[in-house]
């Protein structure tokens, strides 16, 4: 049964990712992107990452898609969409070659898999790892500075002169 759920989610993810690229109307492409984000959140749930699934829905579905849709609505000629660029055959070949190389590498690698059972809920261990003593506190602070500078940079770029 989990196998069937995984294959269904994987098919939905691949189809919606292809639809993002191939649908001509940019607004519908953004809606397909939202479907992809929610499918990825469901895949996180299958991977026992409950906190990350919630964060995925909050950040990607709640914030990033809204930003993208606002950008589509504020740019006038974005609605009709353009055909693919001139490089599409070369790009397709490069992507397929990369896919083959990655798949070959994955299949021919033996990962050392420990047999620990997965954690029931991950919020507490994640909080301890992020903010605890031998944790990632410096990285969290650097990420905060990165977000602040990104906000300031976006405001400075958008501001009317």
């Amino acid at each position, binding site marked *: 049964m989990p196998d069937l759920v995984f294959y269904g989610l994987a098919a939905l993810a691949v189809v919606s990712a292809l639809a993002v690229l191939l649908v001509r109307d940019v607004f519908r492409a953004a809606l397909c992107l939202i479907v992809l984000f929610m499918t990825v959140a469901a895949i996180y749930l299958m991977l026992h990452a409950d906190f990350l699934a919630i*964060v995925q829905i909050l950040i990607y579905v709640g914030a990033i898609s809204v930003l993208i849709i606002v950008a589509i609505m504020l740019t006038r000629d974005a609605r009709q969409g353009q055909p693919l660029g001139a490089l599409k055959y070369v790009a397709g070949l490069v992507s397929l070659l990369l896919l083959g190389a990655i798949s070959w590498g994955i299949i021919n690698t033996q990962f050392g898999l420990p047999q620990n059972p997965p954690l029931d809920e991950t919020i507490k261990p994640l909080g301890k790892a992020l903010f605890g003593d031998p944790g990632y506190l410096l990285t969290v602070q650097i990420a905060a500075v990165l977000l602040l500078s990104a906000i300031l940079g976006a405001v400075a770029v958008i501001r009317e002169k």
Partner: protein
Amino acid sequence: MMFTVGLYHYLILSAVLFCIGLFGVLTQRNVIKLIMSLEIMLNAVNITLIAFSLYVTPVALTGQIFAIFVMVVAAAEVAVGIGIVFAIYRNRESVDMENFNILKW
């Protein structure tokens, strides 16, 4: 390995999504769809990290912490990217990549 879903299946799914996103980044002419393709690539990487987190470090959760930082960088990247799109759109009245040749010399 072939029929029960395990680490390899998630890694292959992530590779497929990553290559779809790469194809989009290389071919899309609309800059907003290009940003969407970038988001597909970042999500594919996150699936890889979280799959490794479950199957390789199930107690330390290292992969999930990496995925959180990838999400932070993705949010910052979208904010700055959309800002740049607006700034260029104000000058050029277009979102077509063909018109974004200001940096050419």
